[in-house]
């Protein structure tokens, strides 16, 4: 484990110059809740090698947009999504797209840690079990161990896998949720303000974890904390009033924003 005091951003590579094919693309996305438009013509590319951060003031639609990327908005009866969102070139809102499989491929970590009220083992094993990823008990054990190790939780829980997941501390619960998302071997992980309910030490651990997961999974993180965005991401999108004001390399956004609104937000003039 690396020293917690060293911010991961120190080694963060600049965004790749010649970008490969994007993992996910969104073109002209509009989201409506009833008659209210929450997202207005958003287009963005998400790359596998990068951590992409969405920043912006409360209610600007960044979480809403995040939830369109794995169709979690389907559960909201009044929500309507327009536009084109593709995962590896496949339209995820197409009829032929199986939403259950999509959500396995595009995993999600929520704002509040939400482990199932089941054992730690069951929390991680649930996803692989419903997708039939393990042939037998031994394979399942392997998946659970690997996922917990990747989430940096294994050493803390390996002796009490049968304890309830809800008995862990907040930070551990959130890493358990990350392990749960990892367990189904997703291609993209969406994180909706994963640290907003955590203390600074737990936050540092999650950030370190995000840093280590980068490259293996495309990661999209929504955050209110601009330092966090600067620390963990390579690309940053600034949302305001339902649309993207500016999207680019994190270093560029934070040191040399093109738009005055971005600059005002980053320097704390509003939000």
């Amino acid at each position, binding site marked *: 484990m690396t020293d917690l005091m060293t911010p991961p951003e120190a080694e963060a590579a600049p965004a790749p110059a010649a970008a490969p094919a994007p993992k996910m693309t969104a073109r002209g996305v509009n989201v409506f809740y009833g008659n209210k438009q929450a997202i207005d013509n958003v287009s963005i590319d998400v790359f596998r090698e990068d951590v992409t951060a969405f920043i912006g003031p409360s209610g600007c639609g960044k979480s809403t947009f995040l939830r369109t990327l794995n169709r979690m908005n389907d559960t909201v*009866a009044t929500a309507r999504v327009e536009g084109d969102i593709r995962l590896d070139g496949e339209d995820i809102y197409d009829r032929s797209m199986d939403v259950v499989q999509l959500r396995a491929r595009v995993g999600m970590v929520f704002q509040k840690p*939400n482990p199932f009220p089941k054992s730690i083992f069951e929390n991680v094993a*649930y*996803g692989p079990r419903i997708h039939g990823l393990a042939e037998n008990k031994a394979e399942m054990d392997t998946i659970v161990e690997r996922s917990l190790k990747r989430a940096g939780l294994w050493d803390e829980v390996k002796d009490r896998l049968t304890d309830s997941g809800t008995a862990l501390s907040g930070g551990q619960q959130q890493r358990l949720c990350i392990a749960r998302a990892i367990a*189904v071997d997703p291609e993209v992980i969406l994180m909706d303000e994963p640290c907003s309910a955590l203390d600074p030490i737990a936050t540092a651990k999650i950030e370190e974890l995000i840093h280590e997961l980068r490259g293996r999974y495309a990661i999209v993180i929504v955050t209110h904390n601009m330092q966090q965005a600067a620390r963990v991401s390579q690309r940053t999108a600034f949302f305001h009033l339902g649309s993207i004001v500016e999207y680019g390399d994190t270093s560029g956004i934070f040191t040399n924003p093109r738009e005055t609104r971005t600059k005002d937000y980053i320097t704390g003039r509003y939000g």
Partner: protein
Amino acid sequence: MIKADISGPVDPTPTNWAGEAMQRRIRKRYGAERRFKLLGLSAVLLSVGFLAFLLISMLGNGLRGFTAAEVKLDVNWQQTGFTIDRAALAGPDAEAALRAADFEGAVRQAAILQYGEDGPDLFSGVARLRLRDAVGDDPSVLDRPLTIWLPASSALDQAVKTDGSEKAERAYETLRSQDAIRTGINWTFLTGSDATDPTAVGIWGAFKGSLLTMMVTLLLAFPIGVLSAVYLEEYAPRNRWTDMIEVSINNLAAVPSIIFGLLGLAIFLNFMHLPRSAPIVGGLTLALMTMPVIVIASRNAIKAVPPSIRDAALGVGASRIQVVFHHVLPLALPGILTGTIIGMARALGETAPLLMIGMRAFVASPPEGLTAPASALPVQIFLWSDEVERGFVEKTSAAIIVLLVFLLAMNAVAIYLRNKFEKRW
């Protein structure tokens, strides 16, 4: 930027927190609090008092119903002139031989011989059955004079337990001096069915009827109610139709039970021609009545499951049915069970709808199955409370005790299950 504005008109005098007026207000506030607490406490005491009164009077009357007075009778078979086909008793026709024999006459003659002209009045009408059972169990008792304890008549039974007619009291005194009377557990009451003689009645028939009825009710109302709740909460779109269904269900839960009885009468008996007085019809009718209660309770329990758990399950790619059956229902189960207890408890105590579908018939044997004529505990209580004979008073109370014990047992099981499934998140 937000700017706090603390200018504006300045208070003429600063608030005097220690002043007389403020102290008075504080005293008044505490006074109000004390009065409210006192009121609440007296309300609780009053309700506890009512409950205690109910239980004490019920137990005081009812416990006597579980005992019966018995009178000693010496049966000298030769003197009573009793005859029976001894050869048949050993064979397969034993039952017929026993039925043919005049045990009633035997009891009467033996009683006259032992206790004089009024002797037969001391014994209950079921005394002959007891004697017959004794002979059936062991025919060798016919070889020699037999001494047997037989149930006392209702009048004597009353005299033993409380106070009876003058004649019965005198008989009781005489018998006691001869050590020829005792009180024992009334097994007939625990194993028998309805009868016209209060010393011969039993609760088992009604108990079994209630048991079968509740079984039908639970098997129908629970799954249908829970599945309706799941559909309405998790699947149904919110529109005018579902609003209407919701209103209808809420109203159904408040419909008087006798109306469900009329419905059952019209549909199950007159239209579907199911057998009258049968537990299956009772169960169907009570299921109609219980279902709305279960639906409402289940919907509330399902609503109370935190959405974050649904998100979590959907987020790892669970389908909706997996979300419901793996996560939502297990977490909602305690609440669902609570609603089911309430509904079933109400159904168990329900009399009116059962009267409408004919379960008030006189049924002298326990129901053999779901379609056999049966009674139910509350109906049996209602019927016995209507009887004029004094012996039925204690039987009514005893039946109430049985009903309450049934109810408590049912609730205990449900509470045990609820605690077992209760989980924190």
